[in-house]
């Protein structure tokens, strides 16, 4: 009898358990509350802000319409706007929080060692935690635009989407699958943040260090991206293709940018996650 009766490594730390362990955290609840409230805050801002700028812009048919000018044109436009303002930072923080916190917080609570001694095999512990963290991240990325769609539709109505730039309209029903693509791409492009935060999370005992480290490196990448002198090298920065989802809302769907973005994102994510597993396997857990 080498193991206790009823023990089987593949039954340890079921996803359900990990979901419950993470869900009741104040951090999780606050982040979801923020993501769900943000569209309503923006709706209020658009409703009560000085009339003019936004409204006029939509009516004027200027040569190039900005996405923010069109936000109050329809629920779909509003959702696209909300996504565009939050994808570059808010969602990054949310994803970094869920993935960066997951192992580091266990280390800081000392509960990690009891899980490992339970024993939950290390690979399995990481795998289950990664799945749950990615699940929470995906939920965050999905629920923001969906809530924005709901809020925008209630506030501005269900109209055809007006494309930024040319001002062309695309029928609302045609654009719904495109919206799915947008959300899908947003998910894939956040994989890098997730993987980076996850890697740092397995290295450090400080949950905020992991989140901050991931967000910090993200910011550095964004800054590097602004250096034109880097030329095509910039295409391989993880943040470079962040806004490629805008192509899905163009009159003609262009996959090339999103394909490149997804490629870069998956590449970084695969390597970072592999390194995370490798490090954690050999790590001496001393916290």
């Amino acid at each position, binding site marked *: 009898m*080498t*193991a*206790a*009766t*009823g*023990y*089987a*490594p*593949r*039954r*340890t*730390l*079921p996803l359900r*358990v990990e979901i*419950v362990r993470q869900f*009741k*955290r104040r951090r999780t609840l606050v982040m979801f509350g923020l993501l769900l409230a943000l569209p309503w805050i923006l709706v209020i801002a658009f409703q009560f802000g000085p009339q003019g700028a936004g409204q006029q812009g939509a009516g004027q048919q200027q040569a190039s319409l900005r996405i923010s000018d069109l936000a109050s044109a329809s629920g779909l436009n509003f959702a696209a706007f909300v996504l565009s303002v939050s994808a570059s930072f808010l969602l990054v923080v949310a994803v970094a929080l869920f993935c960066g916190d997951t192992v580091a917080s266990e280390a800081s609570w*000392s509960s990690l*060692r*009891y*899980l*490992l*001694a*339970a*024993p*939950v095999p*290390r*690979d399995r512990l990481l795998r289950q935690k990664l799945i749950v963290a990615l699940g929470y991240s995906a939920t965050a990325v999905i629920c923001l635009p969906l809530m924005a769609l709901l809020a925008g539709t209630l506030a501005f109505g269900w109209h055809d989407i007006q494309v930024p730039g*040319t*001002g*062309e309209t695309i029928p609302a029903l045609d654009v719904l699958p495109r919206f799915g693509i947008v959300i899908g791409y947003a998910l894939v492009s956040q994989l890098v943040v997730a993987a980076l935060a996850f890697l*740092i999370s397995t*290295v*450090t005992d400080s949950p905020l*260090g992991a989140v901050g*480290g991931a967000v910090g490196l993200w910011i550095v990448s964004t800054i590097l991206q602004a250096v034109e002198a880097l030329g095509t090298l*910039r295409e391989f920065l993880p943040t470079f*293709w962040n*806004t490629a989802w805008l192509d899905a809302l*163009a*009159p003609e769907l*262009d996959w*090339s*940018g999103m*394909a*490149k*973005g997804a*490629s*870069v994102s998956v*590449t970084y994510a*695969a*390597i970072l996650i*592999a*390194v995370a*597993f490798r*490090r954690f*396997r*050999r790590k*001496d857990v*001393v916290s």
Partner: protein
Amino acid sequence: MKRVAALVAVLALVGVAVWGIWPSAPEVRGQEQRISVVDGPADDQRVELDTTFFAPPDGGKAPAVLLAHGFGGSKQSVRLQAQRLAQDGYAVLTWSARGFGRSTGQIALNSPDYEVKDVKQLIDWLAKRPEVRLDAAGDPRVGIAGGSYGGSIALMTAAHDSRVDAIVPQITWSDLADALFPDATGQGPENGVFKRMWAGFFFGRGGGPIQGLEALTRQPEPLSAEEARCGRFLPAICDIYQQVAETGKATPEAVALLRQSSPVTVAGRVKAPTLLIQGQRDSLFPLGHADANARAIAAAGTPVSLAWFDGGHDGGNGEADWLHDQTTAWFGHYLKDDGSAVARPFTVTRDGGRDPGTRQRIRLHPEAASYPGLGGTATTSVTLSGPEQPVVNPPGGAPASISTVPGVSGLLGGGGQSNVSVSLDMPGQSASFESAPLTTPLQLTGSPTATVKVSGKGQVTLFAKLFDVSDSAQPPTLPAGLVAPFRVTIPEGQSSVEATVTLPAVDHAFAVGHRLRLTVATTDMGYATPAEPASYQIGLASPALTVPTVSALAAPATGVAWWVWALPLASIVVAAIVLATGRGRSRSGGDPAERAGEPGVPLEIIGLTKAYRNGELAVDGLSFRVEQGQVLGLLGPNGAGKTTTMRMMMGLIQPDAGEIRIFGDPVSSGAPVLSRLGSFVEGPGFLPHLSGRENLELYWAATGRPTADARFDEALEIAGLGKALERAVRTYSQGMRQRLAIAQAMLGLPDLLVLDEPTNGLDPPQIREMREVLKRYARDGRTVIVSSHLLAEVEQTCSHVVVMHRGRLVSTGPVSVLLSEAVPTNGHGPRLEDVFLDLIGDKS
């Protein structure tokens, strides 16, 4: 983390250093030189040309490039280009053409008698330079490049001098008469409509518009009477210009004079491989001119390539870098023989939308293996419809429609980011015929043709243009802002005439849902139109608009970059390698089965060694053994290695050497046998936001074992937390957490229980209780290991002890034996405390 940060810092430093010491391009110095040439029909006019010679920076003999400037410019306007070319390893000569800059002489419009003779003598001069590679004595390896006026001298010289080895003429004319008096019905310049604004700029003294903004900001200099009249033109040219500009009609003499300066007449003699680069936004020398040159040169069997780029006299992007690359590739191939891949016979710059990353406009350069001409490789017939419509020519020709304003569009267009212009038609002056919305996209490449019917009287001047009309509220766009002027004469006695109009050559994509609109107007601001008021009827003679397409160009849709697929696949391979090589290092000790331990021994430690990072040994060759039913006290001062040993028992840290066996199984991280171990080491570890009960329940759920095996009730009784069990753990006191953690360790009543300082934070009654619990626990055949500082505690609780000091085992055995061996002191029986202090050699 620190190592990662250091790595990032090192990489950044390396990057900066490489950037700093990267060899910068060698400095190129220009050598000013005045070169005397003799030209004129009788070779009797001496002219001083102001030149600058840029020797190749790395010495040796290099091919030479003559770089010519545009109209109104001078050698200074091509200085940067010249330096760039010289850095690429050419001997570059720039010069101010006669009549420009500081050169003497008068402008003869690249006449074979004047400018061409000058350039031939520049080639003579180059042949004498030591830096220039020679094909034969007096015959240097030389290419000529230049734009507009400079492009035509390249063509003219190549036609007249066989020593020229390659040319890259840009945005230049083939027939100057046709450029200034275009006629879209093909009846030649004598019937053409005077391109009055461009002609005015061209013959005006400064050539202002070609200079762009500089022309607007430059301080005007006062002129002499002759200068004001003719600038620096040859008087003969000046007189003819004044005559045609006044009448708006090309006289045969004017056509003859302009033809003299036109490459089209001599292009068949060009033997130098020619790369013609023509602007898509050029109402002065539209694409048709490059077409005529290309056909004439190709007819003689000379290699010729044609590129339509995003630029021209009306602005556009200019694509300076792309042009430079194309030029150097052409010269590299034909002058240096370095095997550069040269432009395919036909290249078109197209709008590639916005770069998804930078949101900047990008340009694509689709190519075709042969040049199809302006008629395309295929044609699509688009049906236009519209009734006959009355139009008027306003008295005085004003107000006039606006399509392109020469010299201004380029400035106002903000660099002409897009390839379309907005044009303005005056009401009542135009007739329009529209197609149905397109059901498939239509890529027009070349000159569409349409046949119109004009009813009225006498000579009629008209302007045809093809608009792209989208369905939304966007105004229609006129591709490249180009119009096709034509003049028809309605014969006496007839009421109407039909004319086939060749519309301007453009490359334009009509999207699905857009319509094509043919507009025929009576006026255009850029052209001379009759002053007399008149009215006509304009209709379609045939509803078909023939649209040329070049499908070979559509092919180079770049597809996805190779790395889009390769990178993720490679990364997955790398990830797999990273994981495979990282799989638990097999420690020395060989096959575990070979040294199978005894399943009945709860704990056996053999030669266990673990070093701190600094190399100091935390545990040093520790060996001991615990039998079933023992309550073992693990004793030792701080830093003795107790906790490290316990962590190794839990598989949290890997020993450097030695082995731990629990019930005969070697311990490693996640070893299944750990499920028989309950542990509490170095304080509790709970999720603070959950209640005590939830913590225990979730912990047990995480082990994946059946709930019934947990024995929650017994564990909770030990914790003794009462109602506090339902509160969040973060509200607990130290003692409460301690008790909850011990309860957690006892969940499922493990066969081996390891407790580190279990009595910390407990009050005396609880300590007593705990003592009983542990004794009872061991009595049922289980084993307990307790580490403690409280020696009295250990003495009362434990049956056996292990004493450690500085990572080594000092003593082991039953408590009773240890005590009995000790010498009684101070008159009473031996205490464990004394034994312990004695053992670690710290007895005071």
